[in-house]
């Protein structure tokens, strides 16, 4: 499903930083993988590359068999919106939009008809158990609820891949567990491939496959 | 004391002398009327010379005479006429007739020091001056062109305006005829006027040629009088604006 071969990423500033150094990685369809490592180990960079938010300096990335290198920005966006759902640490909900609107956003961007969007958005919010908060603005919700809206948004078209960047990082431990449980449930129900970047040992251990990064190299990759 | 007194009296006597000589000179050469054909030649320092001809008529006593001057050549100025009416108590009045415009105009007289139509004469030089307008001093005797002359200085009286602050003239002793004037402005000699070809015409001594030298611009103007006649009968109507306008 996700395949990286000798992917490197360098940041050219005053001092060159090698964030990823010839990383090879294979993630199969339906896997649930956690990605751990200290700050600056390159885990967020890896996630961004897989998500098509950024492009590698060297190496190839394939998503569902499609090579990401060489496609246009808009093509990349299309791949992203069809195959990948993002969940962010800071939720990144648009503060001016209601829960329903936030969840509808990616569907609108795909140009779905309004009734279908409405149907799907409600369905998604029901999935994350927020069917009673449809018309609330993000600021009226708790942190956990906001993250659930964000998850619903990420699932909008039931993408085969879910990428989560510290989904519990901004939540208290109890809520964090709830969110993790939700992600696991969705993983099982939807058969989605899930990749979670986390600091949280608990979260990491909850995943069947755990990968650890350090200084741009994979230092551990264990299953089960 | 008495010596000084005698000296002072002598000066006064000489001064009176000078004035009397000038007065006598004007009296002798006075005529009731006069007529001639003038030729005016201007020699410019840049070598561009010009010649103009006119007819001249004059009537009346010196100092209060009237004169009419009418150009006959060159063609550009043919018909232009000038009427001059002299007054004993003030500057003369001058009118000009312009045939091209068919109108007469007063000649502005405020600045009499300016040159008379491109000649080396200034407007003031053409005026007749009454002896009462100046003070005269005898400077002595001096020969001029081989003729014994009185050398007399005239200075305008207070209140009389003139561009010249001093005029020195040479008057021939034999015939009381002035032959040269040195004209000073601000104590600088600016013009020299010479009377040449002095002859007796109809019993009146006359200079048939006058030469004016402008020392500042280094130009020279010669005025020749041909066919000079005196005491010809000239009607007063000739010297009026109407006559000027008729252009005859």
């Amino acid at each position, binding site marked *: 499903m996700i395949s990286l071969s000798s992917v490197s990423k360098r940041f050219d500033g005053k001092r060159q930083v090698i964030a990823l150094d010839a990383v090879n990685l294979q993630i199969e369809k339906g896997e649930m993988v956690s990605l751990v490592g200290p700050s600056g180990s390159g885990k967020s960079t890896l996630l*961004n590359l897989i998500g098509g*938010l950024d492009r590698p300096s060297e190496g190839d990335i394939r998503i569902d068999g499609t090579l990401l290198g060489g496609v246009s920005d808009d093509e990349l966006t299309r791949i992203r*919106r069809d195959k990948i759902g993002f969940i962010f640490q800071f939720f*990144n909900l648009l503060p001016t939009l209601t829960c329903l609107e936030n969840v509808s*956003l990616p569907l609108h961007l795909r140009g779905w008809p309004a009734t279908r969007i409405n149907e799907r958005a409600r369905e998604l919010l029901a999935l994350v158990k927020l069917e009673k908060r449809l018309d609330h603005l993000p600021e009226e919700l708790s942190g956990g609820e906001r993250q659930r809206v964000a998850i619903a948004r990420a699932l909008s078209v039931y993408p085969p891949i879910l990428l989560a960047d510290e989904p519990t990082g901004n939540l208290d431990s109890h809520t964090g567990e709830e969110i993790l449980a939700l992600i696991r449930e969705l993983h099982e129900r939807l058969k989605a491939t899930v990749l979670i970047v986390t600091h949280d040992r608990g979260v990491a251990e909850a995943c069947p496959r755990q990968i650890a990064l350090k200084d741009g190299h994979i230092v551990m990759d264990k299953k089960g | 004391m008495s010596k000084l007194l005698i000296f002072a009296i002598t000066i006064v006597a000489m001064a009176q002398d000078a004035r009397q000589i000038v007065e006598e000179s004007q009296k002798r050469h006075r005529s009731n009327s006069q007529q001639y054909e003038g030729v005016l030649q201007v020699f410019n*320092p840049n070598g561009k010379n010009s010649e103009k001809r006119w007819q001249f008529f004059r009537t009346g006593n010196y100092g209060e005479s009237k004169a009419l001057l009418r150009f006959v050549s060159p063609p550009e100025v043919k018909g232009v006429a000038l009427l001059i009416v002299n007054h004993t108590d003030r500057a003369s009045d001058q009118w000009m007739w*312009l045939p091209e415009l068919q109108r007469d105009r007063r000649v*502005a007289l*405020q600045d009499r020091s300016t040159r008379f139509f491109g000649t080396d004469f200034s407007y003031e030089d053409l005026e007749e001056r009454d002896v009462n307008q100046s003070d005269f001093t005898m400077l002595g005797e001096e020969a001029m062109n081989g003729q014994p002359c009185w050398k007399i200085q005239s200075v305008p009286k207070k209140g009389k305006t003139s561009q010249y602050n001093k005029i020195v003239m040479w008057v021939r002793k034999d015939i009381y005829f002035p032959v040269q004037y040195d004209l000073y402005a601000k104590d600088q000699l600016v013009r020299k006027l010479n009377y040449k070809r002095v002859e007796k015409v109809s019993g009146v001594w006359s200079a048939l040629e006058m030469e004016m030298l402008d020392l500042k611009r280094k130009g020279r103007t010669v005025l020749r009088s041909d066919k000079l006649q005196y005491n010809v009968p000239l009607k007063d109507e000739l010297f009026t604006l109407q006559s000027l306008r008729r252009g005859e």
Partner: protein
Amino acid sequence: MRLLKLISWQYVRKHLLRTMLTMAGIVLGVAVFVGMHTANQSVLSAFNKTVDRIAGATQLQITAGESGFDEEVLERVQSNPNVRVAVPVIEAVVNLNLKTQSNILVLAVDMTGDRSLREYDLEDGDETVIEDPLVFIAQPDSLMVTREFASANGLAINSKITLSAMDGPRTFTVRGIMKSSGLTSAFGGNLAIMDIYAAQKVFGRNRKFDRIDLAAAEGVSVPELQKQLAATLGPGFEVESPSARGKQFESLSSVYGMLANITSLFALFIGMFIIYNSFAIAVTQRRSEIGIVRALGATRGQIQALFLTESAVLGLVGASAGLLFGLGIARAISASLGNFLGEIYGVAQRADEVSSDPRLLLGALVMGVVTSVIAAWIPARSAASIDPVLALQKGRYQQLSKGENRVRRQMAAVLFVIVFFCLFFAQDRVIFYSGYFLTVIAGLLLVPTLALWLSKAIRPLMKGMRPVEGTLAADSLIQSPRRTSGAVSALALSIALVISLGGMARASYDSINEWMRIALNPDMFLTPTQNVTDRSFRFPASFAETIKQIPGVRLTQVVRNARVLFQGNPVMFVAIDIASLRRESYLPAIQGDSESMYRLAAAGKGFIVSDNFAELYKVKYNEPLQLNTPTGPLSLPVVGIVRDYSDQKGSVLIDRNVYMKYWNDDTINIVRVYLDANTTVAEMRARIEERVAGSTRLFILTNQDLKAYIIKITDQWFGLTYIQLAVAVLVAILGIINTLTVSITDRRRELGVLQAVGALRGQVRRTIWLEAIAIGVVGLLIGLLFGAVALYYSLEMSARDIAGLRLDYTYPWNMAVGLVPVIICAALFAALGPAEQAVRGGLVEALEYE
């Protein structure tokens, strides 16, 4: 100061583009101010210089309006013992048919005596200047030109040059060339001197002079002599020093100066909002930085001073740029101004060098700095009130503007009440203008509220159009009134200005068309000059008779119009046969009874004045008008007021018999010709040309020609006001660009999220475009509303202080509708740059952006 360098400079460097956009308003405002005033001053000083140079040693000048006076006056002046020298003068600007120069100033003087006042040559006598003075005077075709003019046109002594004289084109002979001197630099060296008596004929002046130049006798006090001459000559004459002529010219160009002020004030005012806006945003964006500095021990005062200093520096830099820009455009403006004054007032003047007054430049700099500081005042205060603790917490916003809108609404309401009362006492100038000012302030206070309401109102509309982009764009407006209200205010102000000027223009055109329909109904107009406002040439009285006898002419009316000094101002007097005018061009009286107005005026028992004259000189119906004419005082009542647009500064209609009697002037400027029913204009043109061909300088204007000419002048006039519009709209567009640039920086993360969840670049671009359009539409709607009010005040102002014209209030709906696409396009245009910027740059940083 160190703080400034440490903190502000870094910020400016990072936001260089935005800083430049912020300054745009100041740059433009100052540029317009400096440019237009410098141009005005240059033209004025060129005029004064010409007057000076031509005046030479002249201490006093005697004039009698434009009618001139008889030669006999000269003798009266000369006979005054206190006058050393007095010489007559005729001045005319003559069109040359030369490629290099179009106009030449002909100064006609008495060649026999003028040298006592003017030095034609400083070096030596006049022999090198004039070949032969006697020939010069004897030949009326003699002309003396400046060396500059001669060499520019390849002229030498005895060269021929053609000038259009009263009796058609006429060949002149160059008989003198002036060496360079003070005089020859007058009128840019395009100066010719001729003899005055020849000029009387050439310019159709009869036996009249335009002016007498004189100098006092030695030891005579000039003011004393001035009084004495004024007393001997009587009230119809003006005895003034040469410099006083500059003042008259100044009064003609004053309208232009006023316009310059209004335009630059508007640009600065609008610029002020952009600065306010930028600073308000900067304060929000830099709150954490401010928080750190505060935490490190900076006082509130220091923070406030920091921002104010920043704004002062910004103002200074902007004003300096504006200054340079203004001086750059001054030359072009002064050329157009010279033409403009020539066209409208018939006073030709050219400024060959641009001269700027250091005081003006300093004033402009101060203006720029003060504007900027005032604009930054409120943001600086809110910066000072930032709480360091709150500011340092990531992701939290301290609400800096809580409750602001409510307070503003209340203040606006109070102001509107005051304004309402001001309307009742609007006769008083101070109250009227205070009312206007307060209205603007109240309006501006309401802008954020109105903008919010309107944004909310159009949100569903935009959502319907584009569910994602539309909603986001509308929300961007609703969420950050602080960011948008500045741009919206600037735009609304510009639109209001456009509407008020547009409304005024339309009302003016309507009134002028109506006036032309009635007053300008003759079939043909005959003039001796190409330009009806130029009065250098005039027909002799007999000319009308010649025309009348041409078969096919039903009626002729002769017009003599001239500027006559009224209370020291040059006022246009139109002398015409009033009885005939009543029969043919019946302009109704707007005050007074029309019938008796025409009857009394025709009988020489009164003046008919234009409404703008009445307004400008506070003249009332039935009140007597006191005038000084060359033959003595004239006092007649105003028997009626009509709407007449003959002159910007007002006009007075008078029966020609009265004019001829008091001004001793029977010359004619215009012959109005009415044709028989079965004669066509083309036939008549041919007949007239046949009759007067070659013998008279003549220009034939058909009815359409003249109307087109007047419309052209009106267009030119409004052309100047359109500069204001252009400047205002330009500044407003810069405001939109500024706001959007800020908006995309502010919303970088939001835009990043949008892309992360699948927005294509086109969709992001459209969001920015829609936001711009939303700002445009909101600004437009508010502006159209404000415009309705501004139009009322503009019309009042025009009636009171600019032109004295009372115009009817009509809202320019056409223009309002026409503005919609213009503003939308302008807004879209403004959005192009920012939209591109929004899709550039890494998504990763955008998402991490804080």
